[in-house]
């Protein structure tokens, strides 16, 4: 069996080497695929903080993904049309600057996570799963009928947004940005796991009564985890929108929430690199199975089933021979 840190190192190395090789042999599409994997991984890292560490099975994380996407879409749309965005009493101009867009995406999704968390965390178990799903559906239907920003058609951004000093229109620099942000998020999660907060959150998942009897409030721990989680997933949403130069209500769909959970499970739940490995595997499967058969969803389903039934720790569990945290 292989130690987890070696696997993590190989995964990171692979994320550097494969796109670089693709750049050399002029296969830019491979870089696009790798970017997709990295951005999905970032979204799933966000979810993993709530789900893997906090034990919060959220079937509504697409809300934050979508909010991040629309933060990008709306700001860039106003910049593209030179029409200021009116917020009641004051107006702000749109922007094509990635750092500002990211900040807005993070703040907006964190606020949404705070509101949704305050309401949903009163429930637990299946009820929590279902109420998060319900919030996802609300945002989905709202986005579909919000014609000012394209409704179901979504919003197209003709050119990718800018980052100071980089040509983001080239696949490689944009990939680099996404990878850097993924690494930051991984470091964030890692430090959280080692922190007092991580210790308490981890315990709150396994034995909430214990956490209460030492004088801590599990609800507040979970709320903070949910907000951080939503913010990271929101950032991923903004990047995903920039990758596609497009946002639409499908970013809010419950299938997307389901897919984010799938990524975490096939990689290994509650493990730092679980979502990364899961996202890579998912993109490869999607691409490779999709090329072999029209009915690739059947096989994706079968693979998922096998993992749930026989490989409880996901791919990382298989490779390291250790089960991960139980959620």
């Amino acid at each position, binding site marked *: 069996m292989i130690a987890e840190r070696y696997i993590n190192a190989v995964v990171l190395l692979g994320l550097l080497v494969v796109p670089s090789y693709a750049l050399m042999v002029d*296969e*830019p*599409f*491979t870089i*696009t*695929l790798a970017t*997709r994997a990295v951005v999905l991984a970032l979204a799933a890292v966000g979810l993993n903080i709530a789900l893997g560490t906090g034990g919060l099975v959220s079937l509504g994380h697409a809300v934050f993904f979508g909010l991040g996407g629309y933060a990008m879409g709306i700001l860039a749309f106003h910049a593209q049309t030179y029409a200021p965005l009116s917020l009641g009493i004051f107006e702000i101009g749109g922007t094509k600057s990635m750092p500002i867009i990211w900040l807005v995406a993070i703040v907006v999704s964190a606020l949404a996570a705070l509101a949704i968390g305050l309401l949903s965390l009163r429930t637990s178990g299946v009820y929590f799963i279902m109420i998060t799903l319900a919030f996802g559906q609300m945002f989905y*239907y709202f986005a*579909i*009928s919000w*014609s000012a920003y*394209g*409704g*179901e*058609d*979504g919003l*197209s951004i*003709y050119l990718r947004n800018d980052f100071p000093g980089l040509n983001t229109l080239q*696949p490689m620099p944009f990939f680099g940005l996404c990878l850097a942000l993924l690494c930051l998020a991984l470091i964030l999660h890692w430090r959280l796991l080692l922190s007092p907060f991580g210790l308490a959150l981890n315990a709150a998942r396994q034995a909430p009564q214990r956490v209460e009897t030492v004088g801590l409030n599990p609800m507040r721990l979970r709320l903070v985890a949910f907000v951080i989680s939503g913010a990271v997933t929101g950032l991923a949403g903004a990047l*995903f929108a920039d990758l*596609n*130069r*497009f946002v*639409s209500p*499908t*970013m809010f769909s419950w299938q997307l929430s389901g897919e984010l959970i799938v990524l975490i499970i096939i990689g290994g739940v509650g493990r730092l690199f679980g979502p990364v490995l899961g996202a890579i595997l998912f993109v490869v499967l999607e691409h490779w199975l*999709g*090329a072999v*058969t*029209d*009915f*690739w*969803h059947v096989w994706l389903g079968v693979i998922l089933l096998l993992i749930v039934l026989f490989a409880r720790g996901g791919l990382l569990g298989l490779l390291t021979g250790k089960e991960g945290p139980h959620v």
Partner: protein
Amino acid sequence: MKQLMLAAAVGALSAASVMADTKIGMITTLSGGGAGLGIDVRDGFMLAIEQSGRSDIEVVIEDDQRKPDIAVQLADKMIQSEKVDVMTGIIWSNLAMAVVPAAVNQNVFYLSPNAGPSALAGKGCHPNYFNVAWQNDNLHEGAGAFANTAGYGNSFILAPNYPAGKDALTGYKRMFEGDIAGEIFTQLGQTDYAAEIAQIRASGADSVFFFLPGGMGISFLKQYADSGVDLPVVGPAFSFDQGILQAVGDAALGVVNTSQWNKDIDNPTNAAFVESFGAKYGRLPSLYASQGFDTANLLLSALDKAAPSDADAFRDALRAAEFDSTRGDFAFGPNQHPIQTIYAREVVREGDVLTNKIIGVALENHSDVYAADCKM
């Protein structure tokens, strides 16, 4: 899914070698809900390519699963890796909006075999973008015009609450001269229309216009037929195409719908198309299949005159639209959208199958209102 289809005609090899190989990328919906439409477009398109006998055309086909993000990713792949010259295939307006602007700005030609969102017909028009099907409003406008000739004075109209639905009602109202008895936006993907039908019954309307594509239309028509409301219904062809008519059943009989194509349009190209499509695939072609077929033939006609690498000449060749359309006369307007006749069709039973029969012309040589906004 990926298929490399080489138009197989061994004998034509030497003749074709004078021209450079052309690579065509088709992104369409082949799995999940709505796959039927993509399959028809693909089959129609490939039929024409095959009949041309040309072996210098390579068509790369990919499935977008009706997801915008997948479509964009596939477009990136086709442009960056496959280096295609021409793209086509997208069924849905929202996917087209996600793919087309970026593609045409990267000097790829895009021929739309189905979707025609207004944004791409007006201010967002582009020299490399050609629509071979219709602008989205066209068939709804046709329905409005038909309602006038049929003498309807008070229509109840409904469509799903999303942009194409809003365009549909706008399109109908643009042509319809009577009153509107009621206007409803239903939920996208809604399956039960009892409440809407009750409102129609109570509204005092003398006719109903609806735009409910796919499964929504099937549900609506079945429930409407069973409700005992017997006001005449008119709608665009999307709920009456060959693929879904059988699922609607007798509930559709006698309903008038508008289309730019039908299998009984009387011209030799169309007759040959209907026959060869049936021979090859064992089913009647739908309007989507005819659009795929026309798209391919337009492309072939342009390839006969110029290669896509010579962009200006190729563009002029496309604009000339010198090909035999299954619709008979076909020409492009200034925004490179069709100027064509919209017919009124009626659903009839032919032996075991339900199909459509042309009963009249709704709009003659019709263009679209967005063309004026197109500065090209």
